[in-house]
């Protein structure tokens, strides 16, 4: 994004605080906190009701992993519109397998969903990284193809809660130390991917590739391999999200998660991931997803008519992008003034 980064050691405490506030992630956290506060003031049960905290944590647990997956791909200056369709196949695989084989260990089914997602992601990866086709078009195509496969596979059937093992359904609604199981999985994904994106050389190369693809070529980075792996990772996470989806809703048809791909993109952009790659954080995308889901729950409580709820989300995204643009322009103007002065 546009923030001028300076050495932390040169900053006063106040400046450092201001810098933290200026980062998109913390701005989203603040907006989220305000939203929860206002919704709770309006209707205390939003937070303090019997399921208040639980709902707050459980509802975003499906979109969070999808936003993480999307962020990884967006950072490389690509996009994965097929995540929701992969989620659908992962959900159908999990639900139908468990319905037919109630005795299977859950972890094995989860691994199956991850592997399926990775395979589907690698198809995207081959088309985009190896053949050089534009990600937008490729994943738009696989969005339909994967959903079509899902329809074919499901054959008009629905796997409902009565067909699924009790163990699975309990896992879906259960919690550990007050944190829903699904949110724990989501958090583990966020923490692990955040750590990876910060610390591993290969992940820093993902940023480099997205920041300036030609420069990455000049640097001799293995761009194709990295982009391929980003799409495989995205597919794998989306597959796991499918498993989580089946556990959460207990009923799966061929349309599971349909439309979530755009929510995932919106969450990532809202959380500060640049749509043109090179910047943003995975946890920013995750917190963006939490905000997006929570808005949808809070707006009815605040008495915002149904019609306006989507518009509010749209305005939030536009607002965030306009703000970025303004900051970037101000930054550029300042720099060119400095340079003019230096040259005189």
């Amino acid at each position, binding site marked *: 994004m546009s923030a001028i980064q*300076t050495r932390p050691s040169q900053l006063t405490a106040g400046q450092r605080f201001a810098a933290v506030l200026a980062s998109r992630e913390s701005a989203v956290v603040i907006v989220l906190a305000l939203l929860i506060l206002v919704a709770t003031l309006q209707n205390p049960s939003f937070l303090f009701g019997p399921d208040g905290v639980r709902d707050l944590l459980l509802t975003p647990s499906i979109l969070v992993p999808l936003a993480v997956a999307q962020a990884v791909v967006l950072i490389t200056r690509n996009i994965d519109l097929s995540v929701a369709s992969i989620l659908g196949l992962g959900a159908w695989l999990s639900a139908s397998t468990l319905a037919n084989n109630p005795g299977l260990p859950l972890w094995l089914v989860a691994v199956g969903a991850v592997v399926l997602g990775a395979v589907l992601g690698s198809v995207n990866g081959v088309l985009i990284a190896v053949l050089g086709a534009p990600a937008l078009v490729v994943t738009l195509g696989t969005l339909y193809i994967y959903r079509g496969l899902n329809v074919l596979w499901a054959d008009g059937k629905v796997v409902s809660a009565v067909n699924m093992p009790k163990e699975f359904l309990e896992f879906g609604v259960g919690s550990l130390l007050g944190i829903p199981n699904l949110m724990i999985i989501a958090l583990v994904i966020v923490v692990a991917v955040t750590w990876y994106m910060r610390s591993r050389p290969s992940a820093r190369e993902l940023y480099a590739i997205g920041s300036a693809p030609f420069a990455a070529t000049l640097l001799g980075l293995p761009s194709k391999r990295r982009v391929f792996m980003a799409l495989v990772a995205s597919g794998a996470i989306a597959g796991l999200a499918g498993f989580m989806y089946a556990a959460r809703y207990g009923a799966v048809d061929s349309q599971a998660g349909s439309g979530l791909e755009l929510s995932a993109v919106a969450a990532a952009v809202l959380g500060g991931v640049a749509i043109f790659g090179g910047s943003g954080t995975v946890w920013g995308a995750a917190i963006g997803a939490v905000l997006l889901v929570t808005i949808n729950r809070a707006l009815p409580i605040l008495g915002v008519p149904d019609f306006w709820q989507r518009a509010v989300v749209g305005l939030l995204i536009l607002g965030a992008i306009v703000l970025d643009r303004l900051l970037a322009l101000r930054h550029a103007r300042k720099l060119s003034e400095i340079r003019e002065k230096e040259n005189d």
Partner: protein
Amino acid sequence: MFNEESTSSPGMAIALEMTGVTKSFGAVVALRDGELRLRYHSVHALMGENGAGKSTLVKIIAGLYLPDAGTLSLAGNPVSFKTTADAKAAGVAVVYQEPTMLPHLSVTENIFMGRLPTSRSGNVDRKRMRREARALFDRLGVHIDPDRIADGLSIADQQIIEIAKAISMDARVLIMDEPTAALSPEEVRRLFAITRSLRDEGRAILFISHRFEEVWDLCDTVTVMRDGAYVSTSPLAETTERDVVRQMVGRDVDSLYPRGERTHGNTLLKVHELTSLGVFHDIDFEVRAGEIVGLAGLVGAGRSEVARAIFGVDRYDSGTVELDGTPVRRHDPLHAMGLGLGFVPEDRRHQGLILEFGLSRNAALAVRRMLARLGIITDSRENSLARTWLSRLQVKARALDTPAGTLSGGNQQKIVLAKWLAASPRVLIVDEPTRGIDVGTKAEVHQILADLTHAGMGILMISSDLPEVLGMADRVLVMREGRITAELSHEDADAESVMYAATHSEAVKA
């Protein structure tokens, strides 16, 4: 750090040798005979006009292009670079004219990207990386915050980062492709001091520049290229600027160009103190009726930017443009067109034509308002207009609805011309009107331009083709780094005087 101990005397060992290297892109031969011999402990200049093949040669050494033929060896060992990573691994680093930074990443990551240092656990070792970056900057004597993001760094600082990168990977061969083009004098001094110390460490440096003062100041040997081929290599002590210019130009500028007697009318286009900060400054000139004014200079001198500002495509900060006494509004191409200004841009494929459209629709673009009846343009009206102009310009195409993208470069250029001529402008700005088109069509374009001036049109012609400028223009303006450094009459202008003004800051206004 690298040190070639046994070879500190002149007569030093050869670091890089290239012989007989060729490279073609389709039918265009970019490099016919690439030859270069770099020695350790040396700063070697590479000079030549635009299009002489310097960049192609550099990109081959950098591993960006694969040569069609020829050999390349490093320290006596034959090498073949298939990727930029190969070249880097062999110890070749390139500092490009416009460095390719990763704008979102920190300065430190920019230096080490591709070989980020890791701790034992395999994580990026940020502390070590920052420490090494600081040490590099200390050594280079510069103050750049290693933690800031690269976005917004000056070109000079970006180059320093590229050099730091080269040192950190201990490159033995350092190629600097016009590094000084965008630097202030102070920044050039700093760069030269660093370059000398790198040379003293024993590295071989190839320095590409158009500035004679700099080459004589910094380098010890010069290789001249022309038209994609090697011309000569000589120690700078044994050669003169005049020799080098002659070798660079190297051909007789003949008078094959249609000029005839021209009578110049009143002033049509008047540009006064036009300035766009950091791009061009105090541009002053006039174009009269029936006159061709040539705008010469090297690529990047700001010529196209001036043209775009005059036509209103780009904004400018101060100054005025008048057409026949009427001020042309800033940043308003429609107004400029309405007053009778036409602009044939440099990149015809992207800026001049809609490649998917047919010929007649392209030709009618500039006059679509005039053609429309009640807001509707019919094919027959477009076609009749197109037929007139396309036959007058002898465009060779099968049908009027042939997509423009399928034509040859020369015919495409004629269609762009037709588009503007249909609007009957009073002043036409043409930017590189004959680049990339064959000799026959080139002569036709020249004839068209000459005919237009006879009909009283004023033409501003930007061209990097020196013979073309010298042959066609009644007056030649030379730009260097955003300023007009010389104004030469047709009689006074020759290859050497134009080249001199394009490469020297203090030039004479004749």
